[in-house]
Protein backbone atom coordinates (compact mmCIF):
# COMPACT_ATOMS: atom_id res chain seq x y z
CA UNK A 1 0.00 0.00 0.00
CA UNK A 2 1.53 3.29 -1.10
CA UNK A 3 1.70 6.33 1.15
CA UNK A 4 -1.27 8.69 0.90
CA UNK A 5 -1.29 12.12 -0.66
CA UNK A 6 -0.20 14.72 1.89
CA UNK A 7 2.20 12.32 3.59
CA UNK A 8 5.60 13.78 4.48
CA UNK A 9 8.60 12.52 2.53
CA UNK A 10 10.39 9.80 4.53
CA UNK A 11 13.96 10.47 5.62
CA UNK A 12 16.68 8.46 3.91
CA UNK A 13 20.40 8.26 3.51
CA UNK A 14 21.50 6.20 0.54
CA UNK A 15 24.63 5.81 -1.57
CA UNK A 16 24.53 7.41 -4.99
CA UNK A 17 26.26 6.40 -8.19
CA UNK A 18 28.30 9.59 -7.84
CA UNK A 19 30.11 8.03 -4.86
CA UNK A 20 28.36 10.24 -2.32
CA UNK A 21 25.68 9.37 0.26
CA UNK A 22 22.51 11.39 -0.26
CA UNK A 23 19.89 12.25 2.35
CA UNK A 24 16.49 13.89 2.17
CA UNK A 25 18.04 17.05 3.63
CA UNK A 26 20.44 17.29 0.68
CA UNK A 27 17.48 18.40 -1.43
CA UNK A 28 16.26 21.16 0.92
CA UNK A 29 16.99 23.77 -1.71
CA UNK A 30 14.69 22.17 -4.26
CA UNK A 31 11.13 23.46 -4.63
CA UNK A 32 9.95 20.04 -5.70
CA UNK A 33 11.37 16.58 -5.13
CA UNK A 34 10.46 13.64 -7.35
CA UNK A 35 11.47 10.28 -5.89
CA UNK A 36 11.23 7.76 -8.71
CA UNK A 37 11.33 4.04 -8.02
CA UNK A 38 13.77 2.87 -10.66
CA UNK A 39 16.10 0.12 -11.84
CA UNK A 40 18.27 -0.92 -14.78
CA UNK A 41 16.67 -4.06 -16.11
CA UNK A 42 13.01 -3.19 -16.63
CA UNK A 43 11.80 -2.45 -20.18
CA UNK A 44 9.18 -0.06 -18.82
CA UNK A 45 11.91 1.98 -17.11
CA UNK A 46 13.91 1.95 -20.34
CA UNK A 47 10.87 3.00 -22.38
CA UNK A 48 10.29 6.02 -20.13
CA UNK A 49 13.95 6.82 -19.51
CA UNK A 50 14.41 9.55 -22.14
CA UNK A 51 11.27 11.30 -20.93
CA UNK A 52 12.39 11.25 -17.30
CA UNK A 53 15.80 12.60 -18.29
CA UNK A 54 14.13 15.37 -20.30
CA UNK A 55 11.92 16.29 -17.34
CA UNK A 56 14.91 16.45 -15.02
CA UNK A 57 16.76 18.71 -17.45
CA UNK A 58 13.74 20.89 -18.29
CA UNK A 59 12.88 21.69 -14.68
CA UNK A 60 16.26 21.68 -12.93
CA UNK A 61 16.58 25.45 -13.20
CA UNK A 62 13.05 25.92 -11.88
CA UNK A 63 13.73 23.93 -8.73
CA UNK A 64 12.88 20.30 -9.44
CA UNK A 65 15.16 17.61 -8.03
CA UNK A 66 14.67 14.18 -9.55
CA UNK A 67 16.06 11.29 -7.53
CA UNK A 68 15.90 7.78 -8.94
CA UNK A 69 15.99 4.96 -6.38
CA UNK A 70 16.77 1.33 -7.12
CA UNK A 71 15.57 -1.04 -4.38
CA UNK A 72 15.58 -4.32 -6.28
CA UNK A 73 17.03 -7.56 -4.96
CA UNK A 74 20.34 -7.65 -6.80
CA UNK A 75 21.04 -11.27 -5.85
CA UNK A 76 18.23 -12.35 -8.19
CA UNK A 77 18.52 -9.39 -10.58
CA UNK A 78 22.27 -8.73 -10.98
CA UNK A 79 21.60 -6.24 -13.80
CA UNK A 80 20.46 -3.89 -11.01
CA UNK A 81 23.64 -4.13 -8.93
CA UNK A 82 25.26 -0.93 -7.68
CA UNK A 83 28.11 -1.42 -10.13
CA UNK A 84 25.71 -1.77 -13.05
CA UNK A 85 23.79 1.29 -11.79
CA UNK A 86 27.00 3.30 -11.95
CA UNK A 87 27.71 2.08 -15.47
CA UNK A 88 24.24 2.95 -16.73
CA UNK A 89 24.23 6.41 -15.16
CA UNK A 90 27.65 7.15 -16.62
CA UNK A 91 26.85 5.74 -20.07
CA UNK A 92 23.66 7.76 -20.41
CA UNK A 93 24.73 10.83 -18.44
CA UNK A 94 21.80 10.76 -16.02
CA UNK A 95 20.83 14.33 -15.14
CA UNK A 96 19.55 13.10 -11.77
CA UNK A 97 20.89 11.32 -8.71
CA UNK A 98 20.59 7.53 -8.80
CA UNK A 99 20.56 5.96 -5.35
CA UNK A 100 20.83 2.36 -4.18
CA UNK A 101 18.30 1.32 -1.53
CA UNK A 102 19.91 -2.03 -0.78
CA UNK A 103 17.89 -2.63 2.42
CA UNK A 104 14.67 -1.80 0.50
CA UNK A 105 13.66 0.38 3.47
CA UNK A 106 12.77 3.43 1.39
CA UNK A 107 10.71 1.37 -1.08
CA UNK A 108 8.85 -0.28 1.80
CA UNK A 109 8.24 3.08 3.50
CA UNK A 110 6.91 4.64 0.29
CA UNK A 111 4.88 1.53 -0.45
CA UNK A 112 6.38 1.44 -3.91
CA UNK A 113 5.21 -1.39 -6.13
CA UNK A 114 6.47 -0.69 -9.65
CA UNK A 115 9.38 0.63 -11.65
CA UNK A 116 9.06 3.36 -12.75
CA UNK A 117 6.79 4.88 -10.08
CA UNK A 118 6.82 8.57 -9.18
CA UNK A 119 6.37 10.19 -5.77
CA UNK A 120 6.32 13.99 -6.23
CA UNK A 121 6.71 16.09 -3.07
CA UNK A 122 6.13 19.84 -2.78
CA UNK A 123 8.34 22.39 -1.05
CA UNK A 124 6.99 21.34 2.37
CA UNK A 125 7.84 17.78 1.30
CA UNK A 126 4.25 16.62 1.27
CA UNK A 127 3.24 14.08 -1.38
CA UNK A 128 1.24 15.87 -4.10
CA UNK A 129 1.38 13.45 -7.04
CA UNK A 130 1.89 9.69 -7.18
CA UNK A 131 1.93 7.30 -10.11
CA UNK A 132 3.02 7.20 -13.72
CA UNK A 133 5.19 9.68 -15.62
CA UNK A 134 2.53 9.91 -18.32
CA UNK A 135 -0.20 7.77 -19.82
CA UNK A 136 1.75 5.68 -22.33
CA UNK A 137 5.02 3.78 -22.35
CA UNK A 138 5.04 4.51 -26.09
CA UNK A 139 6.25 8.09 -26.40
CA UNK A 140 4.40 8.47 -29.71
CA UNK A 141 0.98 7.93 -28.16
CA UNK A 142 1.18 10.03 -24.99
CA UNK A 143 -1.91 12.13 -24.35
CA UNK A 144 -1.65 12.97 -20.65
CA UNK A 145 1.64 14.24 -19.22
CA UNK A 146 0.75 13.57 -15.59
CA UNK A 147 4.09 14.37 -13.99
CA UNK A 148 4.90 17.37 -16.16
CA UNK A 149 1.42 18.81 -15.53
CA UNK A 150 1.76 18.23 -11.78
CA UNK A 151 5.15 19.97 -11.74
CA UNK A 152 3.80 22.96 -13.68
CA UNK A 153 0.80 23.21 -11.36
CA UNK A 154 2.84 23.06 -8.17
CA UNK A 155 5.36 25.59 -9.48
CA UNK A 156 2.38 27.86 -10.23
CA UNK A 157 1.06 27.31 -6.71
CA UNK A 158 -2.04 25.37 -7.65
CA UNK A 159 -3.28 21.81 -7.21
CA UNK A 160 -2.08 19.29 -9.82
CA UNK A 161 -4.88 18.45 -12.27
CA UNK A 162 -4.34 14.75 -11.62
CA UNK A 163 -2.91 13.62 -8.29
CA UNK A 164 -2.90 9.83 -8.53
CA UNK A 165 -2.52 7.40 -11.42
CA UNK A 166 -1.61 3.76 -11.71
CA UNK A 167 2.09 3.20 -12.20
CA UNK A 168 2.60 0.72 -15.02
CA UNK A 169 5.84 -1.20 -14.96
CA UNK A 170 7.85 -4.05 -13.54
CA UNK A 171 7.24 -5.11 -9.96
CA UNK A 172 9.74 -4.04 -7.31
CA UNK A 173 11.90 -7.10 -6.76
CA UNK A 174 11.63 -7.78 -3.05
CA UNK A 175 14.11 -9.96 -1.18
Amino acid at each position, binding site marked *: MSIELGTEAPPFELPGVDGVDHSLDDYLGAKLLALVQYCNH*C*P*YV*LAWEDRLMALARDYAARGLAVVAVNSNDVARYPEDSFGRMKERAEDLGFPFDYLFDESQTLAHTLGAERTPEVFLFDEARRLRYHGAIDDS*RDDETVQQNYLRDAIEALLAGVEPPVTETEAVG*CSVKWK
Partner: protein
Amino acid sequence: MIELLYWQGCPSHPEAKALLEQVLAELGRDNEIVMTEVTSDEEAERLRFPGSPTIRVDGRDIDAEGASGRPSLTCRIYHLPDGRVSPVPSREQLEAALR
Protein backbone atom coordinates in the same frame (compact mmCIF):
# COMPACT_ATOMS: atom_id res chain seq x y z
CA MET B 1 2.11 -24.61 -32.21
CA ILE B 2 2.13 -21.09 -30.83
CA GLU B 3 3.11 -20.71 -27.19
CA LEU B 4 3.02 -17.62 -25.03
CA LEU B 5 4.91 -18.02 -21.78
CA TYR B 6 4.34 -15.34 -19.16
CA TRP B 7 4.97 -14.31 -15.57
CA GLN B 8 2.23 -12.56 -13.62
CA GLY B 9 4.73 -10.14 -12.05
CA CYS B 10 5.08 -8.39 -15.39
CA PRO B 11 2.02 -6.59 -16.79
CA SER B 12 2.90 -6.96 -20.48
CA HIS B 13 1.43 -10.36 -21.42
CA PRO B 14 -2.19 -9.24 -22.02
CA GLU B 15 -0.94 -6.64 -24.49
CA ALA B 16 1.34 -9.19 -26.15
CA LYS B 17 -1.48 -11.72 -26.41
CA ALA B 18 -3.83 -9.14 -27.93
CA LEU B 19 -1.20 -8.12 -30.49
CA LEU B 20 -0.46 -11.76 -31.31
CA GLU B 21 -4.18 -12.47 -31.83
CA GLN B 22 -4.47 -9.40 -34.05
CA VAL B 23 -1.54 -10.44 -36.23
CA LEU B 24 -2.82 -14.01 -36.48
CA ALA B 25 -6.23 -12.72 -37.59
CA GLU B 26 -4.66 -10.42 -40.17
CA LEU B 27 -2.69 -13.35 -41.56
CA GLY B 28 -5.86 -15.42 -41.72
CA ARG B 29 -4.64 -17.98 -39.22
CA ASP B 30 -6.73 -19.53 -36.51
CA ASN B 31 -4.01 -21.16 -34.43
CA GLU B 32 -4.67 -21.65 -30.75
CA ILE B 33 -2.32 -19.77 -28.45
CA VAL B 34 -1.08 -22.04 -25.68
CA MET B 35 -0.66 -19.92 -22.56
CA THR B 36 1.89 -21.12 -19.98
CA GLU B 37 2.36 -19.31 -16.69
CA VAL B 38 5.87 -19.42 -15.25
CA THR B 39 5.81 -19.12 -11.47
CA SER B 40 9.28 -19.91 -10.11
CA ASP B 41 12.96 -19.56 -10.88
CA GLU B 42 13.12 -23.34 -11.23
CA GLU B 43 10.38 -23.29 -13.85
CA ALA B 44 12.05 -20.39 -15.65
CA GLU B 45 15.24 -22.46 -15.79
CA ARG B 46 13.46 -25.61 -16.95
CA LEU B 47 11.48 -23.80 -19.64
CA ARG B 48 14.46 -21.62 -20.72
CA PHE B 49 12.28 -18.60 -20.01
CA PRO B 50 14.28 -15.36 -20.46
CA GLY B 51 11.41 -13.11 -19.40
CA SER B 52 7.78 -12.27 -19.88
CA PRO B 53 6.33 -12.47 -22.46
CA THR B 54 8.14 -15.15 -24.43
CA ILE B 55 6.48 -16.28 -27.65
CA ARG B 56 7.50 -19.41 -29.53
CA VAL B 57 6.24 -20.62 -32.90
CA ASP B 58 6.80 -24.34 -33.35
CA GLY B 59 9.34 -24.16 -30.56
CA ARG B 60 11.30 -21.30 -32.07
CA ASP B 61 11.51 -17.99 -30.17
CA ILE B 62 10.23 -15.06 -32.22
CA ASP B 63 13.20 -12.98 -31.00
CA ALA B 64 16.37 -14.99 -31.43
CA GLU B 65 18.51 -12.27 -29.87
CA GLY B 66 16.58 -12.23 -26.59
CA ALA B 67 16.01 -15.98 -26.47
CA SER B 68 19.45 -16.66 -25.03
CA GLY B 69 18.94 -14.35 -22.05
CA ARG B 70 19.42 -15.69 -18.53
CA PRO B 71 16.30 -17.59 -17.41
CA SER B 72 14.54 -15.34 -14.94
CA LEU B 73 11.20 -14.11 -13.62
CA THR B 74 11.47 -10.71 -15.20
CA CYS B 75 9.97 -8.48 -17.87
CA ARG B 76 11.59 -9.19 -21.21
CA ILE B 77 13.14 -6.42 -23.29
CA TYR B 78 12.26 -6.15 -26.98
CA HIS B 79 13.46 -3.62 -29.51
CA LEU B 80 11.15 -1.98 -32.01
CA PRO B 81 12.32 -1.52 -35.63
CA ASP B 82 13.28 2.09 -34.84
CA GLY B 83 15.45 0.98 -31.93
CA ARG B 84 13.15 1.97 -29.10
CA VAL B 85 12.79 -0.40 -26.16
CA SER B 86 9.48 -2.13 -25.59
CA PRO B 87 8.14 -4.70 -23.12
CA VAL B 88 6.28 -6.46 -25.97
CA PRO B 89 7.51 -7.60 -29.37
CA SER B 90 6.84 -5.51 -32.43
CA ARG B 91 4.13 -6.31 -34.94
CA GLU B 92 6.92 -6.82 -37.50
CA GLN B 93 8.63 -9.43 -35.34
CA LEU B 94 5.40 -11.36 -34.94
CA GLU B 95 4.55 -11.15 -38.63
CA ALA B 96 8.01 -12.40 -39.62
CA ALA B 97 7.79 -15.32 -37.20
CA LEU B 98 4.30 -16.33 -38.34
CA ARG B 99 4.81 -16.14 -42.10
